[in-house]
């Protein structure tokens, strides 16, 4: 595939992520902070988001397996996940966190379990999509091209 085709593919892919509600304009905000002085900023922040999220999702899973569930602690963890997902523009994950917090507040175990599954699912999707997007960007750079805005 030649450079122009790769660039077109990237633009289409990125556009689809916004259209389908996976990303919101906060992601564009993130991209605007990247420049020659900070050329890998987006990848770095998104990688931090992956690390933070995976840790939080593991902790939430463990919390829901306990005999006595600490809803307050879970609420704090979902709050954190909402914060970081909103910071990178991971729109669907952020929206699910709002629902999740409501279940924590209501101390609804079934609701929390269901929500956790949904969050894990959406997180998995956005992770795969962002990784694919970064791969495309790298291919373009390797072919000597620049990333279209």
């Amino acid at each position, binding site marked *: 595939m030649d450079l122009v085709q790769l660039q077109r593919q990237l633009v289409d892919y990125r556009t689809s992520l916004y259209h389908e509600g996976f990303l919101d304009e906060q992601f564009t905000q993130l991209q605007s902070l990247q420049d020659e002085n900070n050329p890998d900023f987006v990848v770095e*922040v998104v990688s931090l988001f992956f690390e933070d999220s995976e840790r939080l999702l593991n902790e939430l899973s463990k919390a829901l397996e306990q005999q006595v569930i600490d809803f307050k602690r879970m609420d704090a963890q979902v709050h954190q996940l909402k914060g970081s997902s909103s910071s990178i523009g991971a729109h669907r994950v952020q929206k699910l966190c709002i629902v999740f917090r409501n279940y924590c507040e209501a101390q609804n175990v079934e609701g929390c379990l269901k929500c956790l599954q949904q969050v894990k699912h959406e997180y998995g999707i956005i992770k795969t999509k962002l990784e694919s997007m970064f791969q495309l960007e790298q291919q373009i750079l390797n072919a000597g091209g620049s990333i279209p805005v």
Partner: protein
Amino acid sequence: MAHTLPSSDQSSDQDKWDSGGLECKGQLLIKIVMRNRLTALVVDGDTTCWVLEQELLHSYGVQTLGVDNSRDAVDLIASDAEFNLIIIEKILPVLNGLEVTRQICEIGVRCKMLEVTACSGESERQAFLAFGVDVFIEKPLDPEHLVPILRELDGQ
């Protein structure tokens, strides 16, 4: 000269993306010229958030320090470190954001304080404002909220 953010109603956003080109990078970061070098302390337990908040501040020439827990934040302030701006998240390791705010204000800090948090109810918002937080912002921290505050601190 400041550029304003494009208005973001549904249809104009779709058009923007349909045309195949997202807004030019430069325009989204509201451009301002700062006269003074401001300093800020960012307090947030979540790495993704404070990296982003610090970078956003850096892009406006603000020198920043980031801590990820309340104890370090209070210790820093108590040791007479001075900042023009303090940005605090509500939920933090060790002490919660509200308690940290209270302690910082008790030490006598009079700089601008921003509460930047993922979500909160009206009663919590009021509690923070009563304790001395100047502005309450829902995450993510964006130029639209930050720029007027920076301009005010810069004496513009």
